[in-house]
């Protein structure tokens, strides 16, 4: 008999206590009454997953999940859903409205993000209400450029875009460089996968960046600035353009700002989809209208930048800190953070933590505090395995360094880096070889191809990693990876190539045994790599509900209703859908 539909009803004790038997009886009755018994099958299963909201049924083939049912509801569902083909929206299961979310931590300190999410970014007066443009007014009215730079020196602010170069020093170099025409550039190309701190600032508090750039322009003696924002951020670009227009309307950009002998204006330049354009020399090439390829440094942009003129280039977050420093004083800023890393840093905290999203903490906070206090702990109470910082050119930091203070120096010491602020938490279910492979894929794809070590070397490394993950690793692979890594790191032109081997090197350093397991034992300890795992169904647990077979995208599962199902390993593509949909957890990975 081929049924048109199957109704699964949960026979879970909790559901029965709440009247599942009566619901089942009502289902039978309605099916009989409406003459559907040759078309519809009713099956009792041990559980359907939401027994706290029982009685519960699931109707296939569409998989509609109904909860909190009464016998009347059951009858109604049969009529509406099975006879008339209209699922009953009001009775379907819904995600709980707000997941229990750990409360925010008191340890967060918002400086750059102070206004983000609080003010209307399209209304300049909202920014002014929060003391916006006061710093620019103070600088133009009361301070010499030297004094501005001195205040930054006291603050200890360092670049937030990657390398952590002292901002005051960069400004001094640009100020002292000979030339009439000077430029300031804001690097908003944020391309690290998983990072979105700069976007949030550009969209949520654009004026703070504009003000910071104006102050920088005054300090180094520039009158023109450029925002370089990636085209993948259309809303940030829109907000920014609107903000610039408003600043002009209020006379905060343009000629003789605050009546002083200082004029400054800004333009937005949109990137066009190339990760390497985040590198400063490539970025300037792109603004000049050329292919965005890095060149060797020196000369540094401070002396020979845009069109060969002295140029100061900083990250979005670096500039956003500047008005706060001027307004509240360099020593206020220096009171936060560590000896060499002052102030706060924003992070996009992602991966396996309870509270993902955007955070800002004083530099020097330990990884443990960030993960467990600010991030609310590892998702689902699992075991912490590593954290990846610094984006695709950063590294993975293992559990033994949970108490490491997060600042420029300490991250470097353990083989990673600050980068722009990606912070991806990984738990015991993450395969470190797979992670290294993923980042290598990214850098390989984004390599601009100008220099050979980066172009060819990353491809070779990726090939090896792909092989290892596919279960075809060979003795000697690890050593080859290490040799290639050194060759690429030392031979590449820009930071992309120089940093590309980092994810591999750091995982090799801390998780070498996982590589060895892949290569020699042909197993993936975290059970992730598809070439090394097999999905199986536990015949003891399988209830024959047919859910897995129906959801399998390649029809690799055999089995009749109410009978044990079997996965054909030759057809299976290891997508894991069967494991996700199985109501009784009968699918496991080996």
């Amino acid at each position, binding site marked *: 008999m081929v049924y048109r539909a199957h109704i699964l009803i949960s026979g879970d004790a909790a559901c029965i206590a709440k009247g599942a038997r009566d619901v089942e009886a009502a289902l039978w009755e309605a099916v009989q009454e409406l003459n559907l018994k040759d078309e519809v099958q009713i099956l009792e299963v041990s559980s359907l997953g939401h027994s706290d909201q029982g009685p519960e049924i699931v109707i296939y083939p569409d998989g509609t999940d109904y909860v909190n049912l009464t016998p009347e509801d059951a009858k109604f569902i049969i009529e509406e859903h099975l006879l008339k083909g209209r699922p009953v929206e009001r009775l379907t299961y819904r995600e709980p*409205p*707000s997941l229990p*979310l750990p*409360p*925010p*931590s008191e340890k*967060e300190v*918002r400086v750059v*993000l102070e206004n*983000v*999410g*609080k*003010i*209307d*970014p*399209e*209304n300049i*007066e*909202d920014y*002014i*209400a929060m*003391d916006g*443009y*006061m710093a620019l*007014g*103070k600088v133009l*009215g009361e301070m010499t450029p030297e004094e501005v730079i001195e205040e930054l020196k006291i603050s200890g602010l360092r670049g937030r875009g990657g390398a952590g170069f002292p901002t005051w020093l960069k400004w001094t170099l640009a100020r002292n460089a000979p030339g009439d025409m000077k430029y300031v550039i804001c690097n908003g190309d944020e391309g690290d996968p998983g990072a*979105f701190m700069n*976007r*949030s600032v550009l*969209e*949520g*508090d654009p004026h703070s960046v504009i003000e910071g750039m104006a102050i920088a322009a005054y300090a180094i003696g520039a009158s023109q600035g450029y925002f370089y924002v990636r085209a993948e*951020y*259309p*809303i*940030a670009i829109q*907000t920014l353009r609107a903000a610039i227009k408003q600043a002009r309307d*209020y*006379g*905060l950009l343009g000629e003789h*700002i*605050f*009546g002083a002998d200082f004029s400054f204006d800004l333009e937005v330049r949109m990137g066009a989809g190339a990760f390497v354009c985040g590198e400063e020399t490539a970025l300037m090439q792109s603004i000049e209208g050329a292919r965005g390829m890095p060149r060797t440094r020196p000369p540094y942009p401070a002396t020979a930048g845009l069109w060969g003129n002295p140029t100061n280039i900083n990250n979005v977050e670096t500039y956003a800190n500047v008005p706060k420093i001027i307004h509240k004083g360099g020593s206020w800023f220096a009171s936060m953070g560590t000896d060499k890393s002052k102030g706060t840093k924003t992070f996009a905290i992602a991966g396996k933590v309870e*509270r*993902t*999203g*955007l*955070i*800002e903490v004083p530099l020097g906070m330990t990884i443990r505090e960030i993960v467990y206090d600010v991030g609310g702990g590892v998702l689902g109470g699992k075991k912490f395995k590593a954290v990846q910082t610094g984006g695709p050119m950063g590294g993975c930091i293992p559990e033994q360094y949970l108490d490491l203070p997060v600042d420029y120096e300490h991250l470097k010491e353990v083989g990673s880096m600050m980068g722009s602020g990606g912070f991806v938490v990984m738990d015991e279910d993450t395969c470190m070889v797979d992670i290294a492979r993923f980042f290598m894929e990214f850098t390989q794809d984004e390599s601009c191809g100008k220099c050979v070590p980066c172009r060819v070397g990353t491809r070779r490394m990726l090939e090896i990693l792909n092989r290892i993950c596919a279960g075809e690793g060979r003795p000697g692979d690890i050593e080859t990876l290490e040799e290639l890594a050194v060759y690429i790191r030392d031979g590449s032109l820009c930071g992309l190539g120089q940093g590309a081997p980092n994810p591999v090197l750091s995982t090799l350093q801390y998780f070498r045994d996982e590589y060895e397991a892949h290569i020699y034992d042909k197993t993936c300890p975290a059970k992730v790599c598809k070439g090394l795992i097999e999905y199986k169904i536990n015949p003891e647990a399988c209830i024959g509900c047919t859910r897995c077979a129906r959801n399998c995208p390649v029809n690799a599962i055999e089995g009749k209703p109410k009978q044990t199902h079997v996965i054909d390993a030759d057809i299976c593509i290891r997508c894991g859908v069967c494991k996700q949909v199985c109501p009784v957890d009968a699918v496991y990975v080996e």
Partner: protein
Amino acid sequence: MKSLEELRKIKERALERRKLAGEGAKSRITVAMGTCGIAAGARDTMKAVLNEIEKRQIADVVVTQTGCMGLCEYEPMVTIKIGEADEVTYGKIDAARIPTLIEKHLLGGEPVAEWQVQTAK
């Protein structure tokens, strides 16, 4: 902008407005409209807010927008502030939830506890 004095005046004016009283309004609804919000449906949420306010002819409310509140996973996010009371932040507010939210909290004065989330200060 000619002087700091002028800027201070604008600041006073803006502060008044933000305090609601300056606009003669009793309450404020803010929708987070960063890219994360918009991707999660904030435009529809905003539309629903405006519709609902028009439909019920609520006069003394200010509707405004803001950037990312930091908890992108809970977008679309909405805050409601009534008079002097603390602002209440809600997560996962799609357009369908707006009528309830406006009815219960904005008009009824009772925050909807199960949709609330807390963001960092």
